[in-house]
């Protein structure tokens, strides 16, 4: 540095203050010049264009050097676009776009009005700064900062800021989303005590933490978190409000650096703001003016050096209030609270947390957040979120474990009870006790014992061994090997004795023991044989429910009875009946015959004589009068199906469930279910289960009916009991496995299916089920191996292919499902149901024309199958051919309903509606006529789309949605999705429909399509987050259609995407990534019919 000394008039060396700006001169300033003036000089030159060419020369709305807020970037998003001052801040007059409707709140800082955005037609909130603050640079700056922070933070939990501008009178305003709901403070005040609805509040708290964590990740801290700043909507959505005190942390952030006021002024500005913000809260239940949530360092006034941990403290205080009823610092006056906060007096809070009776993890989390020293608290809100998530996951896991444990306990208890019963029953009939054991030989006199010596020992051993094996055999149920071993051991004893010198009495006793064993085994085996036939007959019915092929069911039944030894069709009915009457399971056999008879009377088999034969056999086998009355009711034809149903219902209502034999009740329930009254059947079975807790069939039937009604979670319990009673029953294990799989626990399901496969190695379907569970676990190569094994086991079995295809479509893999079904059709080209199954798969992927063709083929091959006609009609309706649909529906005869959810009547009325609308369609499409209401608009839209007029369709859908939000939000009818398909087509087809359609109107349609899809995705996400398992599965299945539907290809698949402008392409790719993420986050496989597909 030059040492030139200067004493001239211009010299400043040695002077204390700068003559120009009056500031003190630092003693080490360059060249003795005033550094501030030096900097000012630099600025001045910025405004001269030739000096630096800087672009910010133009005066911006808010002053020459407006602060610009830059938030920290996180690694997973693209850099934010910086607002430059040239970008239309407040260029638009308020009056041209927004209309203030009324005042919502008023306070020291300003007022909040409700406003309406005339451009977009939505309500919003408009925060306006007060007149007197207009000149105060600091307040203005805070106002602007609040807007900029709100505008740049994008999170569902942060109120979106739409615009920052100036009113015509000069006041500044912020336009933001209008939030409706109640504050957390109000909700907390409204509860009776801290125990009430704790879970709900913790869930709200979790969302608050997630929102704050997002802000922290952007380098923003809120500094004023409290329950009155948290809004809770009616669905539990949470918004953190009032970022007016937020600060952008210094990692390149500007906010604090541009400050030209001293710290003291800043503090008072903050206090003004804070007081203002509190006065604005005229909502009931809010806490006015107490800093009960403030971190100690904040209370001490160190606003400058706060970081995320100040917010963490506030979160801890909120959690404390949720758990104990009061925030961390509680005092009589605001001043007292301030004092306590400054001094970090938290012992009271900790004591309350200790005593509140909440889960220890939650209390510990609160305590950690409330640590007096910032360095002891969690570093930022995301750490708090992790703590919460871990806690909540633990809780959910514990709940689910508790449920499973209950089911297991019940099934174990059931198993034990059964075993005890069996033992008692057997013991009563067989002479056993008192024969064995060393004590039993005590009567032999010493001498003979000396003689018999070694033999005695051997015989004892053999008998003891036999006894033990017998115990194990009884325990294991029906394992024949153990019985054989037990008997062998007893025979060994006999042989030893025979060759010895034992007395005839001794030999006699052993002989009797052996005979007893053999009889026992035979009895058990007989029981087993009976159990096996009943189970087999039940699976015939189960399988029929899946494949729907009456002929196959017919031959399955015949085969089963033949295996049992009763060839029903060749024997005389009374002879067959007598044979069956002798069995302990005669009533069940008779029930099966009844079911079989119903099938034979159906249109496909049309075998009345055969049916009669079966029913006579049933009567002969089962003479129970009540059941015969039931039999009569089911078999009657006069009065028609309605009358029959009525009588069945009456029987159900009057049945004395507690005293009737269980079989009767299950018989009645099954009849009701077959004729479509599943709910009554379930109610009946429940009553029966209450009286006969351990009856295998009640539980298994109840499980089956619940599964068929899409209530797998409830079915789990009953299948578990059934499996407990009969651990070897493939029916129970398989049912339990399916129920557990559909409840979202694929790992446990896989274990069960493995057991099934072990039990019945010839059962190909067990492998398919296992494969399905493996698919749900994401192990697709293991799943493929199981599918291949199943196909190897039963290459000629169509159901194997069908089940595999369904497993794929359950996971949303439409392509694989279609492929598998095509393979099945190739193998079984003459099988109507195969074509029908392929058609379903095609329709689920959106390939409607191909689906219609396959349905037609199914009808051609099997004209008696009502279901084929029904679904052909449904597809034709979707394809816009209601007339053809009516023709198909006319071919469905009376009889069993072909589908539990979709009835011919529903489809007929729908088709007729459409037929009535058809003549008006051209006029409506051209806009000359208007639809009468929203439903009509929707129907016209569908017709228009089917007639290849996507532009008209999109327009009509928009009309329908505008008129009726319910139509728009009906996820199951997929209206919005269909609308999006139309919009995509309208937005990407080359030649427009009307002459002169332009590129930007196409772009508008594309945007509309994306908006609709996004809305659907959000709604689906909500359902995925909080629906039941079948609901989630339905949503997931619908979402997987999005990825393969040909109508969406122009905005999804690669070659077409490149034709779109880059920005659009990018946002589309993001969107599809979001869809993929939503799909993969869901691990519950769909059921066959999760929800009725009403898309017609």
């Amino acid at each position, binding site marked *: 540095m030059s040492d030139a000394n200067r004493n001239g*008039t211009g010299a400043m060396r040695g002077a204390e203050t700068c003559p120009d700006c009056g500031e003190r001169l630092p003693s080490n300033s360059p060249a003795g010049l005033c550094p501030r003036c030096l900097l000012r000089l630099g600025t001045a030159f910025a405004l001269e264009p030739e000096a*630096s060419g800087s672009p910010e020369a133009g005066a911006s709305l808010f002053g020459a050097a407006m602060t610009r807020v830059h938030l920290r*970037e996180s690694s997973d998003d*693209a*850099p934010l676009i910086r607002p430059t001052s040239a970008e239309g801040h407040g260029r638009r007059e308020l009056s041209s776009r927004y209309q203030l409707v009324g005042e919502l709140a008023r306070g020291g800082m300003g007022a909040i009005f409700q406003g309406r955005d005339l451009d977009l037609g939505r309500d919003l909130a408009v925060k306006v700064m007060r007149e007197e603050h207009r000149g105060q640079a600091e307040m203005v700056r805070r106002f602007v900062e609040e807007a900029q922070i709100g505008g740049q933070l994008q999170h569902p939990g942060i109120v979106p800021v739409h615009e920052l501008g100036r009113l015509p009178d000069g006041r500044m305003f912020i336009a933001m989303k209008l939030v409706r709901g109640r504050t957390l403070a109000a909700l907390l005040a409204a509860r009776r005590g801290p125990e009430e609805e704790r879970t709900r509040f913790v869930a709200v708290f979790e969302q608050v933490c997630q929102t704050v964590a997002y802000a922290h990740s952007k380098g923003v801290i809120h500094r004023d978190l409290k329950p009155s700043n948290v809004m809770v909507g009616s669905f539990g959505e949470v918004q953190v409000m009032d970022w007016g005190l937020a600060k952008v942390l210094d*990692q390149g952030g*500007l906010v604090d650096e541009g400050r030209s006021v*001293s710290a003291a002024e800043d503090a008072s500005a903050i206090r003004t703001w804070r007081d203002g913000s509190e006065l604005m809260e005229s909502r009931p239940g809010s806490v006015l003016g107490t800093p009960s949530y403030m971190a100690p360092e904040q209370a001490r006034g160190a606003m400058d050096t706060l970081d995320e941990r100040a917010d963490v403290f506030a979160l801890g205080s909120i959690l404390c209030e949720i758990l104990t009823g009061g925030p961390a610092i509680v005092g009589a006056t605001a001043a007292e609270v301030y004092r306590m906060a400054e001094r970090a007096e938290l012992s009271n809070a900790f004591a309350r947390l200790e005593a509140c009776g909440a889960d220890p993890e939650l209390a510990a989390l609160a305590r950690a957040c409330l640590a007096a020293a910032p360095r002891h608290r969690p570093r930022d809100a995301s750490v708090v979120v992790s703590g919460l998530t871990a806690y909540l996951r633990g809780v959910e896991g514990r709940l689910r474990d508790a449920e499973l444990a209950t089911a297991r306990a019940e099934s174990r208890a059931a198993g034990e009870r059964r075993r005890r019963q069996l033992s008692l029953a057997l013991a009563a009939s067989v002479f056993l006790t008192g024969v064995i054991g060393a004590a039993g030989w005590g009567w032999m006199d010493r001498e003979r014992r000396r003689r018999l010596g070694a033999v005695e020992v051997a015989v004892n051993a053999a008998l003891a061994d036999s006894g033990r094996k017998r115990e194990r055999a009884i325990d294991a149920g029906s394992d024949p090997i153990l019985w054989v071993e037990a008997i062998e051991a007893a025979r060994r004893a006999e042989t030893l004795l025979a060759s010895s010198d034992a007395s005839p009495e001794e030999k006699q006793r052993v002989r009797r023991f052996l005979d007893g064993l053999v009889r026992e085994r035979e009895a058990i085996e007989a029981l087993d044989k009976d159990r096996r036939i009943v189970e087999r007959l039940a699976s015939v019915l189960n399988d029929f429910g899946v494949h729907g092929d009456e002929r196959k069911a017919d031959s399955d039944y015949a085969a089963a009875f033949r295996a049992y030894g009763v060839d029903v069709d060749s024997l005389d009915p009374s002879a067959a009946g007598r044979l069956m009457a002798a069995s302990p399971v005669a009533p069940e056999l008779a029930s099966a015959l009844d079911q079989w008879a119903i099938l034979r009377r159906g249109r496909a088999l049309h075998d009345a004589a055969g049916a009669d034969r079966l029913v006579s056999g049933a009567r002969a086998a089962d003479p129970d009068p009540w059941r015969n009355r039931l039999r009569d009711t089911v078999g009657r034809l006069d009065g028609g199906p309605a009358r029959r149903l009525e009588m069945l219902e009456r029987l159900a209502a009057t049945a004395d469930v507690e005293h009737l034999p269980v079989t009767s009740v299950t018989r009645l329930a099954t009849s009701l279910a077959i004729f479509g009254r599943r709910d009554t059947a379930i109610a009946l079975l429940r009553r029966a289960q209450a009286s006969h807790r351990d009856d295998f069939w009640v539980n298994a039937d109840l499980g089956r009916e619940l599964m068929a009604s899409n209530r797998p979670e409830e079915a789990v319990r009953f299948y578990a009991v059934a499996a407990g009673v009969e651990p070897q029953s493939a029916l129970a294990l398989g049912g339990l496995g399916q129920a557990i799989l559909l409840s979202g626990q694929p790992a446990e399901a896989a274990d069960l299916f493995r057991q099934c496969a072990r039990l019945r190695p010839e059962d190909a379907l067990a492998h398919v089920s296992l494969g399905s569970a493996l698919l749900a676990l994401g192990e697709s190569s293991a799943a493929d191996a199981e599918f291949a094994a199943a196909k190897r086991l039963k290459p000629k079995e169509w159901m194997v292919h069908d089940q595999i295809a369904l497993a794929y479509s359950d996971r949303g893999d439409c392509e694989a499902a279609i492929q598998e079904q095509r393979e099945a059709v190739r193998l079984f080209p003459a099988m109507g149901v195969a074509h029908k199954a392929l058609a379903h798969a095609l329709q689920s992927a959106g390939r409607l024309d191909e689906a219609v063709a396959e349905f037609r083929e199914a009808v051609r091959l099997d004209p008696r199958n009502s279901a084929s006609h029904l679904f052909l009609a449904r597809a034709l309706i979707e394809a816009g051919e209601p007339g053809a649909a009516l023709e198909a529906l006319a071919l469905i005869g009376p009889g069993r309903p072909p589908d539990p959810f979709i009835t011919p009547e529903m489809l007929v009325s729908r088709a007729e509606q459409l037929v009535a609308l058809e003549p008006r369609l051209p006029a409506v499409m051209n806009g000359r006529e208007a639809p009468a209401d929203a439903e009509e608009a929707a129907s016209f839209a569908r017709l228009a789309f089917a007639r290849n007029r996507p532009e008209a369709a999109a327009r009509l859908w928009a009309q329908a949605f505008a008129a009726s939000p319910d139509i728009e939000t009906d996820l199951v009818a997929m209206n919005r999705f269909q609308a999006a398909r139309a919009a995509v087509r309208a937005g990407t087809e080359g030649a427009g429909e009307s002459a002169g359609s332009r590129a930007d109107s196409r772009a508008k349609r594309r945007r509309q399509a994306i908006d609709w899809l996004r809305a659907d995705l959000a709604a689906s996400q909500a359902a995925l987050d909080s629906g039941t398992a079948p609901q989630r599965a339905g949503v997931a299945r619908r979402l997987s259609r999005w990825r393969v539907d040909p109508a969406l290809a122009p905005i999804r698949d690669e070659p077409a995407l490149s034709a779109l402008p880059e920005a659009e392409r990018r946002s589309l790719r993001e969107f599809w990534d979001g869809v993929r993420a939503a799909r993969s986050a869901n691990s519950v496989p769909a059921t066959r019919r999760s929800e009725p597909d009403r898309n017609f």
Partner: protein
Amino acid sequence: MPQLQPEGRAPARFPTTQWSRVTTAAGRDDGEAREALSMLFQAYWYPIYAFVRHRGFSPEQAQDRTQDFFAYVLERDLIARADPARGRFRAFLRTVCARHLAGDRDRENAAKRGGGRPRLAIDPYDAERRYVLEPAHALTAERIFDRTWALTLLGRVVDRLRREYEDAGRSARFEELIAVLTRDPETDPYAEIARRLGTTEGNIRVAVHRLRRRYGLLLREEIAATVGDAAQVDDEIQALFAALAG
């Protein structure tokens, strides 16, 4: 996932700044980037020194820690975490410095002296002399950092300016003119200076104007070297201005 071009890569008004070169480093071994960083450090080591001294370390310790810190930043690939569109060298350095030193009180790196580690050229006497002149009142270490940064920066600009005039053989003129660099033109004794330098008042006015222009350019260049792009220079000036308050 397609990315928007971060603004730091957009063509700047000035040629690629040193800081933007650092932040667009391909990786830790990017030689050019390391060199750019070294140059920046060599220019602005003093604020770090002052910061450390203010924390209570002795001059020797402060030197060591400054060297450590330099090596630490170079070696730890922290550069990769800086973002051109957002951060500036000063803010980045201060933050990293604070964090590094905050957790570092007990670590004695005296053992790791020399031997292949990159070193800054720090003149211990210069360092202490400057530090002694720092105001003694209670600013936070961060404020010290920013303040000394501002002063360092201004000092460098003035030095550059002086060297330019010296190279052109006009040191005498420089010394006269620099005294009035920031003065209000109305009150300045241009006549007096003109007499001393043997020229007309009019010439002096023009000369002063030229000096100011040159100064402004150099100042903005110097600042631009430490920020991501030219558009941020004004903001940085505001920040430095605030740092000099009080």
